[in-house]
């Protein structure tokens, strides 16, 4: 299959950039994620096998790239040190408190929980949509989200 990365960029680049800003709360880092992702697709177009919709693939790829960036200790410390203003949009239906709380937890959550947290809390996705992007059952999504909630509650109690 021949992948038209340029067309994909023009159609979906805005979504990648917006979500990277939302997860990372940093314009420069978000711009780098956008670049890296599409440079990677030119280099290795087989990453997208066409079995899912491009939007689904790019949601997963963007989330993965952002979480990797947040997990990098150096980057994480820099992002925290910069105390960046949370990136929000004008009419984002999610509360700024929730977004800030989830963002603070992302770096310490296990990979699958962090992804579910991003999709649920930052993207506002339904359990069915999360299951589709993660490639798992809705029941598993529910379990992940419950685990996240429990973990956050426990950390709040402990602190």
């Amino acid at each position, binding site marked *: 299959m021949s992948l038209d990365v340029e067309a994909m960029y023009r159609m979906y680049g805005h979504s990648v950039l917006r979500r990277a800003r939302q997860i990372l709360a940093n314009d420069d880092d978000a711009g780098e994620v956008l670049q890296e992702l599409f440079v990677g697709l*030119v280099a290795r177009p087989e990453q997208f096998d066409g079995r899912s919709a491009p939007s689904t693939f790019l949601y997963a790829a963007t989330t993965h790239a952002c979480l990797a960036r947040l997990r990098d200790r150096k980057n994480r410390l820099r992002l925290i040190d910069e105390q960046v203003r949370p990136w929000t949009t004008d009419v984002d239906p999610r509360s700024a408190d929730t977004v800030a709380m989830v963002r603070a937890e992302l770096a310490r959550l296990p990979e699958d929980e962090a992804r579910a947290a991003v999709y649920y809390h930052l993207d506002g996705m339904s359990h069915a*949509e999360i299951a589709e992007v993660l490639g798992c059952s809705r029941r598993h999504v529910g379990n992940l989200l419950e685990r996240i909630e429990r973990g956050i509650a426990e950390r709040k109690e402990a602190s």
Partner: protein
Amino acid sequence: MTDHSHVSDLRWDRWLAGELSQDQTAEAIAHAEACATCGARMRELTALRDAFRLRPVDVRFTRPARRAYWIGAAATTLAAAAAIVIVVGRRGELPGERIKGGGPSLVLAAGRAAQLAPISSGDVVHPDDSLQAAYSSERDGFGAVLARDGADAVMTYVPSRGDAMVALPAGVDRSFPESTVLDRVVGSERIFVVWCEHARPLAPLLGELRATGDVTPPEGCHVRRIVLDKRVRP
């Protein structure tokens, strides 16, 4: 933990990309019409998509232009491997004039709704074209888009209602929250994209525009003037 009651960003992104079926589209649009939050979110994501399209040439699949820079190791590897390379324009740089003094970058785009392109003075526009202002700014600010048309009528394009500037949160390549569809009055149309550190009433600016045909930037404000040639579509 229950499901959300709003349409997700993923669904809007799929809608923008044309991935939704007719039924799915109808369902999402019907929800947005009944839900103010989702309606606003739909408009905002559309505006963000439109603003992204205004970015100069963020990713190109041609040889680098003078203003482009290499992405780094990945692109270098690609250059060695194939003729196709990606170059990226300077991040955050929008087409159009950059205002001196480290102020915001203000951009105006026009065209048919799905084909907006950056414009500058002297460009031709047509009735029913959409007009969308965008900006990049390191600071939060407030803004408006004012106009004086070929019949010397003065009007406010953004905000579409009221006398208060709209909030423009700091960011790169962000759209003003509203776009405008041009009316049928042809002739020379002056557009003023205004950005201010603090919200200002629009009445004095409109009064000056009516009296002099120009808008002087108040303190803490930047104004980009664009004179368009509005003609009947051939």
